């Protein structure tokens, strides 16, 4: 029982990270119908940005308070990762809007290769260890034998995710920016006729997705304590799976899908085989797309002739 609860906690933590990345996929797909293949690598870039700023603040500037340092790192990582996403959208995707269907996807694959290799060239191919922070644990249970532990970083990850998702939900549902974004999602041409700046809204979608990916990047860096230039692809595909499972285009679906993928991956590793955990995720991706293409919370796609 304790083992089960422990895995549940680990799964929710991992699922929060996937959910944050998945939102970026699902929003971009919702608005321009494109799989932003480079999103996983934008996430990877954000892990590096977060680690570098954390080191600058704690080692170079000698900032004593970890809480303030983490907050500054979070803000800087969100800003700079958004900048990357904005530039990528501007240079690699915008010129291809209205081109044939596969063109943006190919461009995104190229961008994904470019980003991971750029980080490899500039930062080197090794795994970069992050300073171990927030490693204290809270032990639940009666104290006899095998207790359930929650580490401080797990609490932080789940709490930050929840707060940011609430803020993000408010942004999309209650503000003018969010209204424009949802309008473009429903009908881009009509939104343009009604005075919505479609190009800017699409750019904003990329920026928001990247900002949430940067949050996930900081959490990932803290949770695993290591960053690597190749760590964009697999988390990216898993987050995409989460977006598909939840129903692509649906924001609550992305979060739900992320949690489910996190839980499935954790339980699969715990009870079946850790070697095949990625196979499990990829199989879910295939099975969902074949049998439930609109996902759990998505709207069924209507084919217009």
């Amino acid at each position, binding site marked *: 029982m304790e083992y089960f609860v422990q895995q549940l906690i680990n799964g929710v933590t991992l699922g929060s990270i996937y959910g944050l990345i998945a939102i970026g996929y699902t929003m971009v797909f919702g608005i321009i119908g494109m*799989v932003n293949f480079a999103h996983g690598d934008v996430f990877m870039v954000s892990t590096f940005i977060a680690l570098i700023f954390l*080191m600058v603040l704690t080692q170079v500037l000698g900032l004593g308070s970890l809480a303030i340092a983490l907050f500054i790192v979070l803000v800087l990582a969100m800003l700079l990762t958004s900048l990357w996403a904005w530039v990528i959208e501007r240079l690699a995707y915008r010129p291809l809007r209205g081109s*044939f269907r596969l063109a943006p996807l*190919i461009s995104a694959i*190229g961008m994904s290769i*470019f980003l991971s290799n750029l980080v490899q060239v500039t930062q080197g191919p090794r795994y970069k*260890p992050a300073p171990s922070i927030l490693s204290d644990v809270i032990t639940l249970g009666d104290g006899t034998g095998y207790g359930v532990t929650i580490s401080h970083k797990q609490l932080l990850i789940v709490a930050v995710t929840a707060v940011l998702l609430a803020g993000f939900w408010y942004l999309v549902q209650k503000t003018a920016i969010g209204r424009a974004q949802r309008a473009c999602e429903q009908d881009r041409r009509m939104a343009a006729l009604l005075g919505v700046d479609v190009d800017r809204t699409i750019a904003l979608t990329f920026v928001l997705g990247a900002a949430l990916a940067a949050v996930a990047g900081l959490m990932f860096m803290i949770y695993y304590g290591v960053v690597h230039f190749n760590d964009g692809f697999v988390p990216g595909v898993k987050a995409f799976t989460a977006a598909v499972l939840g129903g692509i285009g649906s924001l609550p679906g992305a979060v739900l899908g992320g949690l489910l993928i996190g839980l499935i991956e954790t339980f699969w590793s715990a009870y079946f085989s850790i070697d095949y955990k990625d196979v499990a995720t990829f199989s879910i991706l295939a099975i969902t797309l074949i049998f439930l293409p609109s996902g759990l919370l998505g709207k069924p796609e209507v084919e217009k002739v």
Partner: protein
Amino acid sequence: MAAAAAARPPVQRSLAAAIRDAAGTALLALGLAVPILALRIDQNINNEPVLRPRWDYVAIAVGLAFAARLAYLLIWPRLPSRAPARMQSASPSDARAHFARAFAAGGLILLVLYPLLALALSGRAGAIKWIDNFGIQILIYVMLGWGLNIVVGLAGLLDLGYVAFYAVGAYSTALLVHNFGFGFWICLPLAGIFAALWGILLGFPVLRLRGDYLAIVTLAFGEIIRLVLINWVPVTNGYAGISGIPRPTFFGLPFNASEQGFAAFFGLEFTPLHRTIFLFYVILALALLTNWVTLRLRCLPVGRAWEALREDEIACRSLGINTTNTKLTAFAIGAGFGGFAGSFFAARQGFISPESFTFMESAMVVAIVVLGGMGSQLGVAIAAVAMIGGTEILRELDWLKHVFGADFEPTQYRMLLFGLAMVVLMIWRPRGLIATRQPSIFLRERRAVRAGLVKEGHG
């Protein structure tokens, strides 16, 4: 054409405005470069992570961004517009088709003579490198590109997991050799058949999906196969891979120094060059076979159904074409050629491991097909030469070490430039290098289908 003209920036009246704009770009570049480029995470002698600043790199990057933007604003709008010339070529002529045919024939003759040319120009020691690294390597990708062209270019199904079939071909060859003692020439057709069967097996459930979804599912299948190859250690030996795969023989004559070898039989002096040249011709023949089969298939009803499917799936279904079967044949035949290429790859290397079958390989083959112009055989070949040859040639650029210092390693930048080239080529020519498609059947007069004539979203 109008869009291309509109994409040009307006002619800047004042230099000051252009400089202000470029300064903004430079600031942007600074923002991008600061964390990733400026501070490198290194380890000191105590194995503790430390930051090593490299502000000189940032200065170079920012300066480059400034100069590039300034040049874009000041020089680009003043260049004479190429739009009218393009309009002219919009009406396809027979001269164009003749040129393409002559180019293909010339290229073929050059390919057949290539090993001899390499031998004549760079001597025995240099020739192995040129034939093996350039000739064989590029031809493998040409063959993979042509194989995938059936799936992506003709049937319009984006397959991001093509490397799975390449892997099936390579591993079936290796396993058949080790478990049954078959030679390469028996393994080759079997590998193709196995890969085609896998194509049917994987294709069957997924081919109802459209567009991007199909792409992602095939990617997932490609990764699943690779992960199984890594983790199913008793059969595949995991990461360590399988070695000791015998090389192809020349009608039973092995290429070695023994009495029964190829060299001894023909009374030649033994040199490893014989095998390299032989392998070159084997892959050339396989690639040409792929091309020939594709061209013939295009004239059969199934090939026409593929192209119709690519242009408009709904119209196809309305006309009574069984889309599932049509897609499945394309998938299986494409997979079969991938299997042949994989089998050849295994025999050429003598060693295979899951490392050779990553998603990156799939992405490269897809890039070759799309950049070449989907459906154009010649375009795919040109793209393969440009992309693979271009990245291989980086290995030869030792003189750059004199420019950038001794620790400069050009090969490090191989995939970086590859990714960049994919993006730039896609923006420059979204329809690929050769965007003109000759329909295989005509109504009265010959007309090429051009990018402009195909509606958005149906190509």
